[in-house]
């Protein structure tokens, strides 16, 4: 395979990319959140923890974006 620009091989590889696995894996592990207690503001664990995963997703993608810019 050749690269478009000789001398400067571009790539999107970075060890930071592995961070993206966290928000992909967490929401798929039902045993983490499939329960009622503890409740938060009346929300069962099932609902508030999955909403909290949004924060994990935003944080990790932001870190990866900044570190690989």
């Amino acid at each position, binding site marked *: 395979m050749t690269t478009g620009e000789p001398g400067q091989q571009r790539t999107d590889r970075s060890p930071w990319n592995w961070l993206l696995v966290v928000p992909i894996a967490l929401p798929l592990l039902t045993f983490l959140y499939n329960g009622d207690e503890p409740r938060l503001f009346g929300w069962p664990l099932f609902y508030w923890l*999955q909403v909290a995963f949004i924060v994990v997703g935003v944080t990790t993608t932001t870190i990866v974006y900044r570190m690989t810019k």
Partner: protein
Amino acid sequence: MSAHTTELVVFILLFAIVSGMGFVAARWRRPNDLASLNEWGLGGRSFGSWITWFLIGGDLYTAYTFVAVPALVFSSGALGFYALPYTVVVYPLVFLVLARMWSVSHVHGFVTPADFVRARFGSPTLALVIAITGLVATMPYIALQLVGIEAVLKAMGITGHLPIIIAFAILAAYTYQSGLRAPALIAFVKDSLIYIVILAAVIYIPAKLGGWSSIFDAAAEKFAATPNPNDGILLTANNQLQYVTLAFGSALALFLYPHSLTGVLASKNRNVIKRNMSALPAYSLVLGLIALLGFMAIAAGTKPITAGGKADSNTIVPVLLDQMFPDWFTGVAYAAIGIGALVPAAIMSIAAANLFTRNIYREYINKNATDSQEASVSKIVSLVVKVGAVLCILLLDPQFSIDLQLIGGVIILQTLPSVALGLYTRWFHKGGLIAGWAAGLAAGMWMLYLIPNPANGKQHFGGSAFGLQNLGFDTTMTIYAGFLALIVNLAVAAVGTLIFRAAKVADGQDATKRGDYFADEGDPDVKDLDLAGSH
């Protein structure tokens, strides 16, 4: 009817404002010449972070989602909440993939995913297969946006099909004139209204219903009283695998839909895409809250509107909003849902039109089509697609569109090996990919056919939860049919590739170079859109 006058006036007013914006959009960020797919179909390929955020958000989170997800939560409970993990998983999943797709598409002037497959695998046949799959998956999705509008109209006591026809005629006219600029501009209004309505709903409604605790408790009580063992406010042992595979499979499928890629390709550089992958989850939060409207409806004792002896569960949210809010605000909420249907319907019809133009018209009918011929064909096809969607709803049972959309999700997943894996590896043989696609499609259809829906007495195509006992396993667990079909697809594609290689069957030429996948705005390749380069 008179009870809904205020709602109707607000609804029509907002609808009219948005329609005006749709026509004015042709002059927004005006290019010298709208007559090319880069301009009409991709808005000039120059959208920055904010416009892209509204455009993709407005595109992915559709009116149908807003009525169907809470309706599912209302009837099944926790399972319907899969929409949340689905939209959490999707962005990190496609973070790197979409940046590659953007780069290679800009270097080669690709407008559709099938354009990419055509160049990458050197196979017009494989490209045609991908294009037709995209068209078939997108068409019922457009029709479903009408179901979203209809749910709102029903709640306002309006029956008959004339309002739907008028709404779609206006939509068709300004999409024809302004192209992707129209939904991009309207998306600002749509999303702002949605955010306002949801914020109000999650503060105001729980306060009226005695707090979040009592809402969840009321839901738990309702599900405990039903004979169905698989509903409830938590997942059961049987549907956890279904929940996870449905969330993951839907995440894999989302950006394979041609209309999702349209928004991505319209952005101006790689950073806009990456930044949006961290910003788009704001919509997931809204979707999670919207899903919980289903529980609020249970707590409020909301009853869906019944027509012809059948309860239309899609009317749950509109009826709940009507019960809870003052009339003028209900009107705003209804307008948010109605306009929420227009943005995705416009983008989807543009994406479908582009597929037809680039991968059927240009490939098989007029090989030397000019930019302006491509744009004219796309504009006309976008009209045809909308007429088709309206006819689908008028002539067929809306349930047919819902079934088709369910099938659409399963079949669009079958383009993953060519489109998404194709961005990473050229290992697969074009023959293997076609064989895998066919096998995945057949397996998916067979599984969907076997799924009954006891709730409405349907024998076939009753959902996406495939019982593993059909495969001889001694279990009551279910799995998402699309996910299983994708595994079949990948296995056949891999084995097929080995066989075609061993038999020395000629493979296609790869027209892309490694560097193309990392090119960015400002590169010499990218500045000059080489539209001939894809052939």
